[in-house]
Structure formats: structure tokens, C-alpha cells
């Protein structure tokens, strides 16, 4: 198999990993070393594919041979996809060739498990080692870690990588048992915990001696697949919240399960729940930047996020007693709860109101979506009647008309997959073989 064919197979195998971030690491460049590459704090997306995802890193697998049999995974041992394997040198050359032409920010390397976890991890680390030491490569490196690999290899990976990740794959232990029998949730979290300790220890060391070796300065992230099992959004968000708190993760990625070639019959072969994925990201942001608690986002009666409304608006409609919020007097945490106001807008309102009362014209200039915000706010020139706020029909004003239900319907939707007239159901019903 020639290089283009290998690249085609091993990029295809890597695309179900949502993350392509090249952000969050320390700034460095090649000016002094005469090598190649630099990183800035924020990362750069060098291209976008028609699936709306950015292309920042060369995201490939070292090999898609795998001894594991995770049902949702295109590379599982029982799948009949074409298999290929890069040598570490081939990956190094591809990375450098792409980088020199400014196609990418760096490399995101992952791998199927071949022979055993340590053997595989050693190959992955060898690529990073060659890039950093032999080629003085200063670009971004994200390494996918195998939880079962030895600590010494994970330590070496962390020395070369900007970011390290281990995917928890599925939100609950039950889901993992059903679909990824070889994976063990506790072992994954233990490995994350060990990585967290090293990241924090290295940060401490570098405070006292800036030359101390770094360890994954871009932190660690993880991904879970959404929609392959009937697990509710409440459980997914609880898991994510727990991971942020326990493991100090930079990001949890939610990946809508999409049909894969030669999928197992135990999986829903429906269009990926993209709107649900979008709502989960919105909820994730509310947890991290807006001061929401995980239990505020769903209710026991409605354990899934409202697909028609963003989660903040849905919360506001459930808690109308907190509104209207006076934009000229309310403290920051209250402003953050107002539908339509993002973190940046809130900070601008706080700055502006030191100089003059904030009015609707100011909000228009700050690009606040007034239609969404008006029922929930109070300004000198706008006082919503309580009757409006208490109107049971208020929700209906925000629900988009049915034909716009699919937020992303402007692209060609595969006709065979689209559920007529609506988005895929929030909880895909599991095929009978999964019912106990």
C-alpha cells in the first residue's frame, strides 16, 4: 500500500475523534533553536471540512489494526474495514511536510491497540520523540494515551506532548459494558488521575525553576459518544461535570454517534443527533463559564435537554421567578443567567453601566439578540409586564417553526437517514438485542 492510500485509510479511521484543538499550551517558537514551528495560546484552524469541523492538526492513527472490539468503533477487531499501518518515520515526514506548507498546527496521533498496550504506546511515543528531538519541531502535538500502558511511557508521552487525552468513550459504566467490553471505566479514570497529578506537579516545578521539564502543558481532554446508548443528557452532563472537577480536564468533547462503515447491528443506524450534541456543548459551557450547577440544566421529569431551545433559555423559562433582571443593578452572576447574554456581553454591560444607564440602544450596539432577551430584562426604557413573563405561551415564542427545527438543515441531509419532520429522537431506542 502506498503512502496516499495509507493516509486515506488512517485519516478516515481517525475522524471520529472530535477534538482538533491546538490551543491552551505554552507559547514557544523556533526563532532561537532554528527548528520548525511555534505555538500561540489560542490555536489556529487551517481549514474546515463540509462537516463544519476544523482542521487544525494532522489527525491520524498510527495503525487501525486493533485487538479490541468496541462496537461503536470503526477500527474494532470484528470490523471489515481496510487496515493499514504507518511507520513512525512516515508519520514524522508527513507532519513536517504538511507543517512546512502551513496546512496544519501539528499532529494528533492515536492508534489502534496492536500486540499489547505498551508496544503500541511505545510506537506513538517514538513519533513524538523523533519530531521533538531529531527535527526540533515546536508545533503542537496531541497524543492519545492508552490507559493500560505503563506509567514510564505515559510520562515520556507527556514530556513531548502539548495535550494528552484518554477517551472515556461512553458516559456510564453500563454503556461501556454493553459496547466496549474490553474497556474499564475505573481504569480510565485512574489513568486520568495519574496524568493530572503529573501535569500539576510539573506546573509546580516550573514555578520555582522555569527550565524544569514540562508535562502536557495543554492539559488533558476526553471524548464521549452521544446517542449510541439510551443514556440521558442528565447522566452525560453529570459525568462531564464530575470529570471536570475530579480530573481537571480542559475539555470534554461530545461526539454525536454517526453511522460507521460495517457498524454493529446493536447500534442505532440513524442520522447523528447533531442538535443534541450542540445542546450538550451549550450546557457544558453553562457549567464551566456561567456558574450553572449540573442539576439545574435538566429536571428529573425531563432528563434530556430541550432540543428546541438553548439550555439557558430553557432554564429561564422554568425559573421565571428570577426575572426580570435589571441590567443596571444586577450583579454579574444574575446577568450571566439572562438568555441571550454571553460572558463577553455581560462584561461589556458591567463596564458600560459605570458611565451611564444601559438602554436598549446600547444593547443593540452590543449585538444582544433582543427578541430572546427582552422578556427577561429591565432597562430604563424597557419594563416587561409581569403578565408577559408569566404567560404560559412565552415558550412558544422562542420555539422555531417546525421546518427550521434542524439547525443544520441547510446542507444536504442524507434522505435515507432523516427522520421525517423532526430531528432524531432525543433518546434513540435501543434495538431489541440490547434490551435486558
Amino acid at each position: 500500500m502506498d503512502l496516499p492510500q495509507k493516509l486515506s485509510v488512517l485519516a478516515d479511521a481517525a475522524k471520529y475523534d472530535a477534538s482538533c484543538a491546538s490551543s491552551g499550551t505554552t507559547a514557544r517558537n523556533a526563532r532561537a533553536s532554528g527548528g520548525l514551528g511555534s505555538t500561540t495560546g489560542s490555536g489556529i484552524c487551517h481549514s474546515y471540512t463540509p462537516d463544519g469541523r476544523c482542521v487544525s492538526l494532522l489527525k491520524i492513527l498510527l495503525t487501525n489494526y486493533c485487538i479490541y472490539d468496541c462496537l461503536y468503533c470503526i477500527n474494532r477487531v470484528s470490523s471489515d474495514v481496510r487496515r493499514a499501518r504507518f511507520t513512525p518515520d512516515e508519520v514524522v515526514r508527513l507532519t513536517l511536510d504538511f507543517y512546512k506548507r502551513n496546512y496544519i498546527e501539528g499532529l494528533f496521533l492515536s492508534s489502534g491497540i496492536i500486540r499489547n498496550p505498551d508496544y503500541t504506546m511505545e510506537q506513538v511515543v517514538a513519533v513524538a520523540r523523533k519530531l521533538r528531538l531529531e527535527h526540533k519541531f515546536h508545533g503542537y502535538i496531541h497524543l492519545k494515551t492508552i490507559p493500560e500502558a505503563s506509567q514510564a511511557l505515559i510520562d515520556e508521552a507527556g514530556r513531548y506532548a502539548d495535550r494528552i487525552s484518554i477517551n472515556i468513550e461512553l458516559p456510564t459504566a453500563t454503556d461501556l459494558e454493553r459496547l466496549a467490553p474490553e474497556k474499564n471505566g475505573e481504569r480510565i479514570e485512574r489513568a486520568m488521575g495519574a496524568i493530572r497529578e503529573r501535569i500539576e506537579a510539573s506546573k509546580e516545578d516550573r514555578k520555582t525553576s522555569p527550565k524544569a521539564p514540562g508535562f502536557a502543558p495543554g492539559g488533558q481532554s476526553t471524548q464521549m459518544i452521544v446517542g449510541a446508548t439510551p443514556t440521558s443528557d442528565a447522566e452525560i452532563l453529570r459525568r462531564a461535570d464530575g470529570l471536570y472537577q475530579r480530573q481537571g480536564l480542559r475539555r470534554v468533547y461530545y461526539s454525536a454517534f454517526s453511522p460507521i462503515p460495517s457498524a454493529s447491528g446493536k447500534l442505532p443506524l440513524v442520522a447523528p443527533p447533531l442538535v443534541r450534541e450542540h445542546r450538550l456543548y451549550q450546557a457544558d459551557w453553562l457549567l464551566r463559564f456561567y456558574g450553572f450547577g449540573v442539576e439545574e440544566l435538566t429536571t428529573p421529569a425531563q432528563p434530556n435537554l430541550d432540543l428546541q431551545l438553548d439550555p439557558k433559555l430553557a432554564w429561564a423559562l422554568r425559573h421565571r421567578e428570577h426575572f426580570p433582571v435589571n441590567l443596571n443593578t444586577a450583579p454579574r452572576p444574575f446577568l450571566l443567567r439572562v438568555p441571550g447574554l454571553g460572558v463577553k456581553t455581560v462584561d461589556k454591560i458591567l463596564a458600560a453601566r459605570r458611565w451611564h444607564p444601559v438602554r436598549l440602544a446600547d444593547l443593540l450596539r452590543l449585538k444582544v439578540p433582543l427578541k430572546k432577551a427582552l422578556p427577561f430584562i429591565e432597562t430604563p426604557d424597557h419594563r416587561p409586564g409581569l403578565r408577559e413573563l408569566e404567560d404560559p405561551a412565552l415558550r412558544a415564542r422562542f420555539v422555531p417553526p417546525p421546518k427550521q427545527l434542524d439547525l443544520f438543515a441547510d446542507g444536504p441531509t442524507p434522505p435515507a437517514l432523516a427522520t421525517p419532520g423532526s430531528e432524531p429522537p432525543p433518546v434513540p431506542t435501543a434495538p431489541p438485542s440490547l434490551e435486558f
Partner: protein
Amino acid sequence: MPASAPLHFDGSFADWKRVARAALASGVAPQQAHWRDAGAAQIELALDAPAPERIVPLADPDLAAPSPRVPRAFLDLAEDVARHRDPARWPLLYRALWRLTHGEPHLLANPADVDTHALHTLAKAVHRDIHKMRAFVRFRERATEAGPWFVAWFEPQHHIVEANAPFFRDRFASLRWSILTPGRCVHWDPDSRSLRFTPGASRADAPADDAAEDLWRTYYASIFNPARVKVDAMLAEMPRHYWKNLPEAALIPRLLAEAAPRVQRMVARSAEQSAAAAPTPGELEGRARPPATGDLAILAEAAASCHACPLWRAATCTVFGEGPREACIVLVGEQPGDHEDRVGKPFVGPAGRLLDRALAAAGIERSACYVTNAVKHFKWEPRGKRRLHATPNAREIAACRPWLEAELAAIRPGLIVCLGATAAQSVLGHALRVTEERGKKLPGPFGASALITVHPSALLRLPAGIEAEAEFQRFVADLRQIREVPDARPSEQLPGSPPAST
């Protein structure tokens, strides 16, 4: 009509600053200022040209006028705004400068102010263009005598080449490269380590292709997931006007056209395959069946390697039943807990101690009973550092049931005590409500009776107090019924025959 001041400058930010300082020193108000850059592009309409006698005399910009004080943030912001291509940026900058020096020193602190907002809007567009240039420049390699030379053609929206040059210098320090644009070109030589700027060039000056672009397009096409098409998300970040200089963008129409058929084929093929390859229900359970023996030690040994359900993966060991084969009574619990999983014996943790206490209170020797569980592996979920008990599901109970049946067949007890709903479900073969059936003796398998009661861990969850004590006494009362078991064993029945109750 108020007096006006034509302000001539060379179009650069530095010269604008020089002239603005002079205008400020001469008291030229913003509405009087008419900025004209070197290209003589008149910013005001020709009809508005003022009569000569109405022109405000301007101080000599090169004479050292006292510099007005402005915040550092304004200079940074102004430098970015000056890179915007909109000619209206110069009067806007001057108006902001005027206001800052005429009683509004905190102007920039108010993001809702009309001028501050306008400045930030322009600066934001410039920042975005700088960012997009870093993203979308595509170098093509050209072989020269001095070695490879990487040349790019790029069309920025604003005047950003100078601002962006240090970024490319620091990133590609070891390469010889040039970025050509219509307005300005920048070149880096790694040997002399210097940046050089030259006037604008044309697309034809840059190489027409590069061998690596085919590989790059292969990557781009392969990383695209046809099952999730979100064109708007792509267009928001990669607007069409950049496409003509991106080698991969030519693929987009074809990728979109093929997406739907590709997904349809994928789904159709998967459906065929899974219909052919679905595992039969017996397949999993067949992996570990109890050997046909009444020897409890051999059964326990065989159960240690049971993989009939996935619980073995997360558990430390199989916790098999324990007690004399001659026992008349078998106590069946739900599953081992954290403690039992580590020790390998049933009912040795907190629930086991409570059971011991209750048995003692009921006057029963535990050592005379056989104690086991419906499910022999600990099922749990991580909760921080703890392993939290998780209820086994019907699939797992069914997978483990052959072992319980083998134990019962070997012992042939007169009475089976079902501690909790899981035990009852496994022993009787169907689910029931413990609260309703509690204390009753139902017909069980192998002719034995099945006594239904609660699981001791249910009592552990009650807060200590009168209620807990009353529940404990109820549990003891249930267990007292054990003493009424007839010593005589029920008639022989073949092992493996269906339970009497089903």
C-alpha cells in the same frame, strides 16, 4: 458652514499620528478635519470642499508640539484600526483622539459608546484577518540553487502583512520563504535572519502547484465525515472568498454531492452484515457453563473463570457461595459488595455483619447455612475514589443463574431464603415486589420453599433510630421462620429441570 482643515498625510499610521498631533495642537475639531492620504483619495465629497478663507491654519506638524496624553490602550487599538481598509477609519480615530483629550479620558472604558464600539468593530475585523492569514496561507515549494524556497500567494482583506510577518518568521525560522500579496510582500532569509518587505506582486509570481497538495487533499477528503454535513458552520469560518487560494477547497462541491449516497451505502451494508453476523443468545452464556457435578469445590473453581457476562472485567474475583453441602437452608443475597469482592467470601462486609446479628437474634447458626448470591461478581460504578454498588440487570442475573442452580442442585435445601428482589428474581425466575411478598413462603426450585425477605443492606441505609430498630426486628421475625423448616429433604429431582414456580 464651519471652518475646515484639509489634513494631508502619507496614509501610514505613523504619519497620521504626526498630522493628528498638529491638528490637535491647532484646535481642529473632528467635524472640521478632512483627511487626505498620499493617493489623494479625497475622503470628503468634492462638493464639500471648503473655500480657502475658511481653512483653519495648521501648526507645523514637525515642530515639537506638546504631545497630548492618551492611554496606552488607545495607541494599541489605533494601530490595529489603522490597518483596516475602510477610509472612514482616519476621521473616526481623530474623533476618538479629540474626545480623549477633551474631557473624556475614560472613553475606551465604555464599550457601549458609539465611537469606542466602532473602533473595536474595526479592530476586530483586522484581528480576524490576521488570524485567517495565519490559517490560510499555503506555501508551495520551489527548488532553487540555494535550496528549497517556500512561496505563498495570499489576498488579505486589510493591511496586515507587516503585522503578521513576525509570526511567520518565528514559526518558519529555518525555512526560506516569501508571502506574496497584491499590496505588499514579505520575505525571510534564514541565513541572514532578516525580514524584507517589497511592493505588491501578482498571483503569477507564485508557484502554480506543489507535489504535497495531492496528499493534503487526500487527507482533507478522508477526515471529512459524510454523515454530518454542516455547511454553514464551515462557511462561517472559511468564507468563500478565501477558497480560490486553498488547494483543498476545490474538493468541497464533490464531497458534498457524494455525502448522502455514501452514507446510504454505509447504512445498507451495515444492515446486511449485522443481520448475518448477529450472535445467538446462547453464544455468550455457552462460554462458561457449570460442570455437571455436585462437588461445590469444583463448581467454585469453575466459576472463578466465568465470563458469561461482562461483570468479571471490573471485579476482583468471583465470589462463590460458602457453607456446608449438608445445609438445609440456603441464604441467597444479591451480589458481593466492595468488601466481599476483595476478600472473595460472601456476606463479610457491613451487610454481612448485620445479617450475622439478625441470624443470632433469630437463634440460627450461620455456619449451618449455605450463604451465596444471585450474581457472583461485584457490579459497581466509580464515584470518586469509591466503588459504588450498582444493581445487576436482568441479563447479568440470567447469565449467573446456572451457577446458583448448580449450587441448589448440589445442596437440595428445604428452604431458600431470598434476601431482596434480585435474589427472589433469580430463585423464582420472575420479578416480584418484596414489600408485597415479604415473609411469605413461595414454591421454589427443586421442591424447596422460597422465603421472601429484604436484603440486609436495605436496613443499613435507614438512619439509626426507632424505625431502623423496628425494621431490624421485622427482619429477625422473617428469619425466625427458618426454624420451622422440616428436617426431611424434598424428593429428588433431576438437576437442571425447570424451577417449580415457572
